[in-house]
């Protein structure tokens, strides 16, 4: 039941709409099968499975709208949720920003669903965990990790004849492997749509090596350094920056993309401005071979490849249908992200080069290699300044080689500055549902040292 076929979803949503007495009705149906295993101290700690389907019904009368949802699917339960949404709509005041529902759309074909991931079962998970635990034990290290797989489907139908449907699978694995004395720590992360690509033993070998290599990190003076950021170190900063690119907040003067001049007639936002190094191109593409996504947004609007930043220029800013109409701009939706492992995160692709991480290290005279950043928090929404710390593998590079491990740093930096200080971009890798290149950046600001390992 949790994962419905296109036909099953269509039949169910048609039934839901048959109960509707509203002037307009829009329904979202989401299903998820989610399995996980967790281990720590070289032993399994918890594991579980979750199955769930949710129906959300949004009804409207004029500019009044109400929303209700359920996970029960008897006829009575379906009628009840439809009536509940209508009752809330009647009680609601007019929403001056209400927009009528969309008509039918055409969607691209996408490749988001893999049977290998559907076939993952508890024993597969247990063996995947054991591959990491056994390799750690063999090296007298202490492993902890988490493997999570999901199959999801999403469907949208409304009373104007729109219907959208797609299925997706994902599997992700993270491991933190530490030396028994707690003086070294390494980490690795892998995620794919296709579980056949997941090799927890290969991945754990990287965390094991970093764990052993990071023992007794030396203290370096905080300051501005050339850094090589692995994709895991930049993905959250880039996703945070993307989520701050909304046109409305920019037009309202409360975003890093707000127009600089307050004079009458001056542009309200920075669309079309070159704000980054010309090598920066960031886009979302449902048909991306490595980071695909649903070809529609939550309201059923078709979503196709959209370049947010191209050759360093801000080319597209997401908006709502209300704001698009009010400002005379095209409606720019973001793809539906649904449930599953990367719920709520728009998958972004950033173009890079051909260099491997190893090549980038070889080509560096003096710098710092950063495995990942942790506890990232915004300091200022205007400059997009963030703080956070390096973690689980920070190394000093000299003359093309990793010379020694160093203590972790706190950073205070903005992705806007980072993307203007690019020395080199490597080959993009999948991380958190995105494709991000390793980056060599100059003058990255480390503000203090941390004793944490």
């Amino acid at each position, binding site marked *: 039941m949790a994962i419905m076929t296109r036909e099953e979803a269509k039949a169910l949503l048609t039934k839901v709409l048959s109960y509707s007495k509203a002037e307009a009705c829009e329904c979202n149906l989401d299903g998820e099968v989610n399995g996980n295993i967790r281990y720590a101290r070289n032993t*399994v700690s918890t594991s579980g499975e979750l199955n769930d389907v949710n129906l959300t019904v949004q009804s409207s009368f004029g500019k009044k709208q109400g929303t209700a949802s359920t996970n029960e699917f008897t006829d009575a339960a379906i009628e009840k949720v439809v009536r509940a949404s209508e009752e809330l709509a009647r009680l609601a005041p007019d929403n001056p920003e209400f927009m009528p529902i969309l008509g039918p759309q055409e969607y691209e074909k996408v490749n988001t669903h893999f049977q290998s991931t559907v076939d993952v079962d508890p024993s597969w998970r247990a063996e995947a965990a054991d591959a990491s635990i056994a390799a750690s034990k063999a090296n007298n290290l202490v492993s902890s990790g988490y493997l999570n797989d999901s199959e999801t489907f999403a469907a949208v139908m409304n009373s104007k004849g729109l219907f959208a449907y797609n299925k997706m699978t994902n599997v992700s694995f993270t491991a933190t492997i530490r030396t028994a004395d707690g003086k070294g720590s390494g980490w690795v992360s892998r995620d794919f749509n296709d579980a056949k690509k997941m090799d927890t033993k290969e991945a754990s070998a990287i965390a094991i090596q970093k764990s052993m290599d990071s023992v007794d990190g030396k203290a370096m003076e905080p300051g501005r350094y050339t850094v090589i950021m692995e994709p895991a170190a930049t993905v959250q900063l880039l996703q945070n920056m993307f989520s701050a690119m909304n046109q409305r907040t920019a037009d309202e003067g409360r975003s890093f993309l707000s127009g600089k001049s307050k004079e009458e007639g001056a542009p309200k936002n920075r669309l079309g401005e070159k704000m980054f190094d010309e090598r920066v191109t960031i886009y979302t593409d449902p048909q991306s071979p490595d980071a695909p996504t649903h070809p529609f947004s939550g309201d059923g609007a078709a979503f196709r490849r959209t370049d947010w930043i191209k050759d360093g220029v801000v080319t597209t800013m997401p908006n709502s249908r209300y704001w698009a109409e009010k400002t005379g701009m095209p409606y720019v939706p973001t793809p539906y992200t649904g449930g599953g492992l990367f719920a709520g995160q728009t998958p972004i692709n950033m173009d890079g080069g051909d260099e491997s991480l190893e090549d980038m290290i070889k080509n560096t005279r003096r710098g710092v290699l950063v495995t990942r950043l942790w506890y990232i928090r915004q300091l200022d929404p205007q400059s997009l300044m963030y703080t956070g710390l390096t973690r689980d593998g920070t190394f000093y590079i000299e003359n093309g080689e990793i010379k020694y491990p160093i203590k972790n740093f706190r950073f205070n930096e903005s992705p806007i500055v980072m993307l203007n200080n690019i020395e080199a971009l490597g080959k993009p890798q999948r991380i958190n549902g995105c494709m991000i290149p390793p980056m060599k950046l100059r003058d990255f600001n480390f503000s203090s040292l941390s004793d944490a390992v």
Partner: protein
Amino acid sequence: MDRRQFIKLTGVGLGGLMLPVIGNAVSAEALLEPAADVAMKKRMTNVALNAATSKGATYADVRIGRYLNQFITAQEKRVDNVVNTESYGIGVRVIADGTWGFASTSDMTDDGIAKAAETAVAVAKANAKFQTDPVQLAPVESYGDVEWKTPIKKNAFEVPIKEKVDLLLEANNAALSNGANFITSVLFLVNEQKYFGSTEGTYTDQDVHRLWCPFFATAVGESGFKQRQGLGNPVGMGFEYLDGREEDKIRVQGANIGYGKSYDLVEDATEAAKQLQVKLKAKSVEPGKYDLVLDPHHLMLTIHESVGHPLELDRVLGYEANYAGTSFATLDKWKSGTFEYGSDKVNLFADKTQVGSLGYVGWDDEGVKTKEWDLVKDGILVNYQAIRDQAHIIDEKESHGCCYSQSWRDVQFQRMANVSLRPGEEDKSAEDVIAGVENGIYIVGRGSFSIDQQRYNFQFGGQLFYEIKDGKIVDQIEDVAYQSNTQEFWNSCTDLAGKSDYRIGGSFFDGKGQPPQVSAVSHGCPTTRFNNVNVISTARKV
């Protein structure tokens, strides 16, 4: 309910505010329908316990939960949405072959319940082959049939929706007419109706209420914009928290109004708008060393991050290494009996018993009666937070009673109790503490916060910053963040206000675990002084 559904239901992204919601939307009336009666819940619990033990479980516990949420979101002059959610189901946790197993279901038929119990045993047995450290449970008293309710005066779910909507719109209007350009206000209500039973012979029936009413105001000026969040606290109270009684206000001359046992939302929104106008023109802080005076609404988060988390025993042991991290407060430091966590003025305690706190319950989620205990006494580390399967590791005879799960669907595990700083012996006011500072900064409200994975190095911001010169508040300043090391910071504590300044703040959505779960936790403290702390400026032009 995932984030996308939440955004659709609230109609707003809310910027940095992440409100995980458990359950599905239901009509307003449905929230007031009576739940299954206690006798029925006990019968269902026994179905699960019997099914688990008959399959080989040596221990089992069952939680039947009905989780109700209501949230109302108002942006500027409009209401975005009114949403009611409900979630009902059962979670079964077992020990079989010395290993934990868990399963949950919303199928509340006898067959559905028994199947969940059997699945939990099967999971335990499957994982047992990789288990190298069999579970040991600390003894617990058998309490029989007991019940507990949050002591509320006004059930917020019973307050008419119009009254709640009008309150949010009044606050928004107050902010907009006093200089704010934008404001989002949210009223968030939680009611956990939790029934618990275990093979130890305890059956608890608890009715837990929580409420939070934050806002986010923005003012746009000539050269940029500034934001200010509300200074109300999430609480374990009913709608009476929003009465805004005068006797619960603590005014600091030249600075802010602090709120204790009740909160004046409209007044705070008005103050926020006025303070935003000052923020737009305020000078940036000069980086350097300052004596800091931290108000309770700010300090509670510093306590949360630098005391609450590092003293969670599962983190100390490494069970959270792959996510939130481990802890600098290792067992050898505790065993030494001499580890100076803070100065001798620092007394930190844990509890799940403070009235009005988010953690306040009668029994935890494994049937342990809640209590209060010391963590740091006269500056020395003396204890951690531990549950039944950890107590033996720190030579405790019983659990501390801080086991929690966010819903029937998720497995319970060790979560932070309320962790609080005892007030000073002398009953000083906040202004008395400020009066002793020559060159310092008074920080109000929770801002940006970040700490490393072993809880050494942290950096915290705030909502409002005031320069202190010769014992007086001088100017409002901007761009303040302080960086310190946990032990160094707590050892720099030199002065605390007294019990009449003690206030309880908290975090509605503290995250931990994989898959992540949220928990609500409070932290009480008085206005407190820390000497010679490193302050940086977060200002940067890009």
